[in-house]
């Protein structure tokens, strides 16, 4: 990784976790074959990119935006709309992805330019309004977006489950279109993550950190803070859109609830804060943790042995709390516990301990 950006997780434990995550994602289709595991793995890869792009804003530049799902959605719809209309296969994926990223970057930079001159809290309010407006547009413009129902579409044959790349299974696993899609998503996500890692370690990235630390002083040094903030917003928006395009490929469906809901915005915030703002590696870990909680916490509660529920005294008290639909409660408990143990996020706190 050194020739690419020279950035490291900054603590042996953090490095181990990052390598473990990467190895698990690469080996996943062969270790845990099946649509569910690959679905979770792909989702993790995509949210690593999405959370990292948000970290450029929140962690590196110190901008609090609630409109990040808007750019994610632009990328997703930009792939879904042409595919649903049958405008070709690979070329519409490529062009749609590109167009989505450019649109999102431009819109994100424009919102920043228009509203970052005002106080930070007002900027956050403007982004909140932008997010609500996007939700409204996506659900009302039925002709384009399919409204609340969203858009279902077909991928090129090579990316469908029916496609066989190899006649014989490899290591006992079928090499099909689903696996190809998974590895395509994983490879692109890895490239995007490394690109962002490089950007935050560039001279430009250093100025963003200076702005986060002390915007007034950065201006006195001669940096046009508004320009830098707008460019950072544009980059973050562009990367979010690319993550959105990957998400469309993974789901083969795009709808307001899957890409634009505030739940996703809250998840992104949690990923960045839990992992450690301004570390990029942290949000990657945060993304893995939150996505896994979403998928497996409910399952874990379901498989809780009946004996716990049957315990005298404790059973009736704890039993209802262990019901599978209480998983959000346990996510909350986990979140509080992590923030308590790692006040600067997982990677952020580990780095501080290393330094101290």
């Amino acid at each position: 990784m050194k020739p690419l950006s020279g950035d490291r997780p900054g603590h042996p434990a953090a490095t181990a976790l990052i390598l473990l995550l990467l190895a698990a994602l690469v080996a996943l289709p062969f270790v845990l074959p099946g649509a569910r595991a690959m679905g979770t793995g792909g989702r993790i890869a995509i949210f690593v990119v999405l959370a990292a792009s948000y970290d450029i804003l929140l962690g590196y530049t110190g901008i609090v935006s609630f409109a990040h799902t808007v750019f994610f959605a632009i990328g997703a719809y930009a792939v879904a709309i042409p595919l649903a209309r049958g405008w070709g296969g690979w070329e519409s994926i490529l062009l749609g992805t590109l167009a989505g990223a450019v649109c999102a970057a431009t819109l994100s930079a424009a919102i920043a330019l228009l509203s970052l001159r005002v106080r930070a809290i007002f900027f956050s309010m403007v982004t909140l309004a932008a997010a609500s407006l996007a939700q409204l547009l996506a659900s009302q413009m039925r002709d384009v977006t399919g409204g609340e129902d969203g858009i279902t579409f077909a991928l090129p044959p090579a990316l469908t489950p029916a496609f066989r790349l190899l006649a014989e299974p490899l290591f006992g696993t079928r090499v099909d279109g689903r696996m190809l899609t998974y590895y395509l998503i994983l490879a692109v996500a890895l490239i995007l993550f490394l690109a962002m890692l490089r950007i935050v370690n560039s001279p430009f990235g250093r100025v963003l950190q200076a702005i986060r630390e002390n915007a007034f002083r950065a201006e006195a040094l001669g940096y046009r803070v508004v320009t830098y903030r707008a460019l950072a917003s544009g980059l973050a928006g562009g990367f979010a859109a690319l993550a959105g395009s990957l998400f469309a490929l993974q789901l083969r469906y795009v709808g307001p609830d899957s890409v634009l809901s505030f739940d996703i915005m809250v998840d992104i915030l949690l990923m960045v804060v839990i992992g450690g703002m301004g570390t990029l590696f942290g949000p990657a870990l945060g993304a893995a943790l939150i996505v896994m909680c979403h998928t497996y916490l409910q399952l874990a509660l379901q498989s809780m042995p009946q004996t716990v529920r049957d315990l005298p005294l404790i059973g009736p008290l704890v039993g209802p709390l262990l019901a599978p639909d209480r998983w959000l409660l346990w996510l909350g408990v986990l979140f509080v516990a992590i923030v308590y143990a790692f006040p600067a996020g997982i990677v952020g706190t580990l780095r501080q301990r290393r330094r101290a």
Partner: protein
Amino acid sequence: MERVLLTRDLTIRFGGQVAVDRVSCAFQPGTLTAIVGPNGAGKTTYFNLISGQLRPSGGEVFLGGARLTHMSAPARARRGLGRAFQLTNLFPDLSVLENVRLAVQAQAGTGLDFLSMAASHADLRDRAWAQLERVALTARAATPASVLSHGDQRKLEVAILMALEPDVFMFDEPTAGMSVDEMPVVLDLIERLKASGDKIILLVEHKMDVVRRLADRVIVLHNGALVADGEPAEVVASAIVREAYLGVSA
């Protein structure tokens, strides 16, 4: 052409209060001008008007014939106005070296480069290191600026200003809160800067011994207005200064 810094009828009002009142003054290269006056006389506000942190209610600022009055602070910084701050104003969580390196990078104008790696620009790093050597802070290069002692933070503030390599150096009480044995580093630095002969140096200072040692010229602000201007000895002796300012401390 001589790069003269000029303020003409520079004025700012906050509500009904006139903080800087029609100050007209020219500053020549190779001259160190000390700006003195009691607390609240408008010295720092005058600095803010020159370096662009504040926009004037009236009057003009020129540097080398170019009108700066409506330029933003970063635009003025890029035109050679360097400013150090009275209240320590650093990038607290970044390392001491990075604080200076950011100033060097601003001076080199490579801030928008997002393709290369900051760590690969060894020349900028070396220039930052050289500035740290001048203020004897290399031992603390890797520490976050926020954990430095007050005196070291003041030195870092000066190092950042030097790294910008401006034509106009504006020091706002650079030795405030420093211990007696820390002061020489900063004062020697300013003296050498003066000896280079082509810089405009402005110094807001309360300590009269520092003013006597460094200043070629002293201007006195009182209630926002320029009330005296001349050689240090002559200004310090003048009645108006004794009344306005030195009456308490001389």
